């Protein structure tokens, strides 16, 4: 029986994280061993769940054995299995980098917070209950507040306050939306919501539309969709490098929730909301992509460049999601997996550079850095992936998105292609300032020595290797994504798995 394994991605980090705080808070080596064991265990379990989910219908775990819609459900379907596997892969790479670069030694409780963050992320991906989604959002956020200000510093703390304030507003908005939805439908179970919200009377239509848009706004805050993206550049560029890399999956939680609710609960065929969500989301996503590309072009520091690259990638993902067709959703899923790995690799490389330079500003070129050849090579690969140039998976992802949006080609194609050019220019400019002009500014000076940090390079290499795997096996992966999207657009199996009671 597989069913108990569904709880492992939530329980394992929770238990290990608590044990770290209680029993090994003064022993960094022990923390590293347990943290690594935990993420490797998470990876093994999530891959197993992925294999199971791809062959079997959605499976429900009833916490405390309370039946739906009253109990709290964990639901394992293809989408949630994909997302927790992505999280686990990212967690392994980020943890290796953290250990290799010694970031975990610059403040206390990094590993415990890291585990709680993983618990919140996995829980958010697995839960089948809208209020429980809020609770897991808060768990991952409170851990992310701690990680964000890890190692301290004035700018980091001040950016952290902004980040917390922005997310507290988001949480309040989430509760307003949930309360409004509950007062109309009387349920917060996602499957039950899908059934009940389709049968609402016209008298409730106005309130339900308001609640639906508020809910999507919350996910838009998480996904950094314009005009709610303001928190992202400041947070990501001031967070420690490995933390920013882990945050690459946090924006995907917003995108995941939009897919989950937008396709299952509020599909474009919904009698009340109709295409309201899609109509609002597409222009916002296009503007997000443009702002991200402008930010890449105008960034004054390397970390802000990476942060705006994250904004731009979310713009592309949301353009595909906003179409709400199976082909576009499959493209969005492929692009999300790609952009998580590429974004994380970019943040780690930014951290490698920032450590070897006096600062990571791009206004003036500085003398060459240690291991410049290797780092510049890695930077180039991740820039190619992020900008969506061939041969890496970013190109395939953007091609899929373009292909799925043929009917809006005039607008969408021109925005995506123009912003890709701007992204290439921005990265080319940053790369030449960092690596080429460095030799001009100090022609015969040797680079200052810096320890090689093999493990850190292994972590970056692993993420880029993940991109290569995603490129080589693009065919099978896309087929799998298409089957996932098809199962989302036919939610009968998802709803049936919840075993909702017959009404009357």
């Amino acid at each position: 029986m597989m069913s108990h394994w569904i709880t492992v991605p939530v329980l394992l980090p929770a238990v290990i994280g608590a044990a770290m705080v209680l029993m090994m808070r003064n022993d960094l080596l022990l923390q590293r061993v347990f943290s690594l064991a935990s993420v490797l265990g998470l990876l093994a379990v999530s891959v197993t769940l992925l294999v199971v989910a791809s062959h079997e219908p959605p499976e429900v775990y009833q916490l405390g054995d309370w039946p739906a819609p009253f109990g709290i459900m964990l639901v394992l379907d293809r989408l949630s299995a994909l997302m927790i596997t992505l999280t686990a892969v990212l967690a392994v790479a980020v943890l290796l980098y953290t250990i290799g670069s010694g970031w975990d030694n610059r403040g206390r409780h990094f590993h415990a917070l890291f585990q709680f963050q993983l618990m919140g992320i996995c829980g958010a991906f697995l839960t089948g209950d809208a209020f429980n989604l809020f609770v897991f959002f808060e768990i991952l956020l409170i851990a992310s507040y701690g990680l964000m200000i890890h190692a301290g510093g004035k700018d980091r703390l001040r950016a952290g306050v902004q980040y917390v304030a922005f997310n507290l507003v988001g949480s309040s908005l989430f509760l307003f939306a949930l309360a409004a939805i509950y007062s109309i439908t009387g349920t917060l179970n996602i499957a039950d919501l899908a059934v009940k919200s389709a049968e609402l009377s016209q008298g409730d239509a106005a309130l339900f539309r308001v609640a639906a848009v508020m809910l999507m706004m919350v996910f838009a805050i998480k996904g950094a969709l314009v005009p709610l993206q303001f928190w992202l550049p400041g947070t990501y560029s001031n967070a420690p490098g490995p933390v920013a890399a882990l945050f690459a999956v946090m924006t995907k939680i917003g995108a995941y929730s939009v897919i989950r609710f937008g396709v299952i609960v509020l599909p474009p065929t919904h009698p009340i909301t109709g295409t309201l969500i899609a109509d609002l989301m597409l222009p916002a996503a296009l503007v997000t992509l443009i702002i991200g590309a402008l930010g890449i072009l105008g960034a004054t520091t390397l970390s802000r460049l990476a942060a705006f690259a994250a904004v731009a990638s979310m713009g592309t993902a949301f353009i595909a999601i906003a179409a709400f067709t199976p082909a576009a959703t499959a493209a969005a899923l492929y692009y999300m997996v790609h952009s998580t790995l590429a974004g994380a690799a970019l943040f780690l490389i930014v951290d490698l550079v920032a450590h070897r330079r006096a600062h990571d500003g791009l206004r003036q070129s500085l003398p060459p850095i240690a291991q410049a050849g290797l780092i510049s090579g890695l930077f180039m690969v991740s820039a190619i992936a992020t900008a969506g140039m061939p041969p890496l998976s970013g190109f395939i992802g953007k091609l899929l998105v373009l292909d799925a949006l043929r009917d809006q080609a005039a607008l969408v194609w021109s925005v995506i292609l123009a912003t890709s050019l701007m992204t290439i220019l921005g990265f080319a400019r940053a790369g030449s300032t960092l690596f080429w002009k460095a030799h001009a500014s100090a022609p015969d000076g040797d680079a200052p020595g810096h320890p090689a940090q093999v493990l850190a390079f292994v972590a970056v290499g692993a993420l880029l290797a993940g991109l290569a795997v995603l490129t080589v096996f693009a065919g099978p992966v896309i087929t799998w994504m298409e089957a996932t999207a098809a199962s989302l657009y036919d939610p009968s199996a998802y709803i049936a798995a919840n075993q909702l009671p017959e009404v009357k």
Partner: protein
Amino acid sequence: MEALVASAIGALTAAGIYLMLRQRTFPVIIGLTLLTYAVNVFLFTSGRLATGLPGIYSSNAAGYSDPLPQALVLTAIVISFGMTAVIVMMALGAFLEAGHDKVDMNDEDTPVEGGQK
């Protein structure tokens, strides 16, 4: 009673949003607190306002008050309390490091050439 509760939620939300848009962290935190109070009351009323109705089984009850929003609001209160504590600590840390409590980051003490270690 509905009008009273609704206007209380509205007033709390309006005051919260006004304070949140201030320049200093202290009013911003007070604003966030007011906003969470408003949302807690709103969450409570989502199960409909009723007086004198039992929450658990009773043989001669005319109706029941909805117990679920009470559980939800309890969770929400605990979470918002914890989050407020976190932001107070972080604001204090930022105030002690920077010497002032402005929320905005684009001021004279941000390095012009950018960059961080």
